[in-house]
């Protein structure tokens, strides 16, 4: 194993094991918070986008287009550097909070568009059936349409979650300590690029592999229509 030691010093990496473990933990919990928030916010966006009221759906459509046509990094800068300059003093967010806000604002429209496609995929008869047994439109949406919609679009939702986890790496640029931040810390202290960055990549790949396994389990549990399409 000596030849490997020349390229990849495992002893050095093991000294930083707890730093990387902390980084993985930060990446995972930040992703989880952003995922929960963007699913809620995304559902609201999807419902607003499908409203017939132009005062509601037009601004929402504009917001979705704006997010999709600008880079995440610029959105993070807008929230982290820009927002404090226009907010009343005293209302300041730290790096982690700014990062979570920016990532949620970024991910929600993508989640919303997926959920909207899901709602469109629910059979018309399901909704008519629910209405005809006396459910209100609100009850129908909550108990009949949304559960089926989400089951139908689980594959793209999981795919977008994987993108979200990768996107948290950009938060290292505004000095949030997460997985890539752990690599940057190791690099700045040891100046060995290979061990620092390749370890980060391996950790991300491990998270990605777990997402693939999870996606397989979900696929077996619920066979929505989107699964057959693939």
């Amino acid at each position, binding site marked *: 194993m000596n030849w490997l030691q020349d390229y990849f010093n495992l002893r050095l990496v093991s000294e930083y094991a707890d730093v990387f473990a902390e980084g993985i933990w930060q990446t995972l919990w930040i992703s989880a918070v952003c995922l929960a928030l963007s699913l809620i916010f995304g559902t609201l966006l999807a419902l607003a986008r499908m409203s017939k009221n132009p005062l509601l759906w037009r601004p929402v459509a504009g917001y979705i287009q704006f997010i999709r*046509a600008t880079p*995440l990094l610029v959105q993070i800068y807008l929230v982290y550097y*820009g927002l404090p300059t226009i907010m009343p003093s005293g209302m300041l967010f730290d790096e982690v909070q700014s990062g979570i806000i920016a990532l949620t604002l970024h991910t929600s429209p993508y989640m919303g568009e997926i959920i909207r496609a899901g709602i469109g995929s629910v059979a018309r008869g399901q909704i008519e059936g629910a209405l005809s047994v006396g459910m209100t439109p609100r009850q129908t949406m909550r108990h009949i349409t949304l559960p089926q919609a989400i089951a139908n679009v689980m594959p793209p939702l999981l795919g977008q979650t994987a993108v979200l986890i990768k996107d948290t790496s950009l938060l290292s640029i505004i000095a949030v300590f997460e997985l890539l931040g752990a690599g940057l810390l190791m690099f700045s202290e040891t100046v*060995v*690029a290979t061990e620092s*960055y*390749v370890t*980060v990549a391996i950790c991300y790949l491990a998270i*990605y592999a777990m997402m693939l396994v999870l996606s397989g389990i979900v696929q077996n549990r619920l066979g929505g229509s989107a699964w057959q399409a693939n």
Partner: protein
Amino acid sequence: MEWITDKWDIVVQLYPFLLKGLWLTFQISIIAILIGSTIGFVLGVAKTTGFRLLNGVINLYLHLLRGSPYLVQLYIVYFVLPATGIAWLSFDSYMAAIVSLSLYTSSYVTEIVAAAINAVPKGQAEAARSVGMTRAQTYRHIVVPQALKLTIPPMASIYVIVIKSTAVLSVIGISELTRQGEVAIMRMPGDIMFIYSLIAVFYFIYCYPMLRLSKWAEGRFGTTGGGDT
């Protein structure tokens, strides 16, 4: 009123720099798209030929590129590859940007091309073989031309992803649009929100037509998935 003239002055002062940044963003994104699409096209076609070993290698390549963030890939190309000591892997920042972005693009394009080729009805290839075309001729004249049409809508949205990814290049000091904005803010620290919004508008002007093209092409040529992520 004073607010508007104030901000207009900033726009007039900054737009030559931002335009320079946009031009570099445009150049880098086009080069990466061209190289990445070429690699992706070759790998995508190779993936459908049905050699198990080749397929495994390509899948590994795709998982490596899709499973890690682009920023990490950029750091690996820029910092780790030169550390191997192999001379031609010592990239300067421009080469590192183009190499990493091309590889990243190719991972998306490979999947789209493979999906499009698989979406061409099997009867097309069978008919071509039955009239005496060889396997290569069938690919060249029958399957690939039909598949290419199907790749247009997802490809347009991949290009938007590539354009947006160029913003990350500012961290290795390439003076593209985002970097130019950061420099502008160092000169005028009072207008952070306005300048970043201005940069966002520049990106929007570049990306939005591509998103529309993708939407239009979806109606025109149909969709094979892949799509926007």
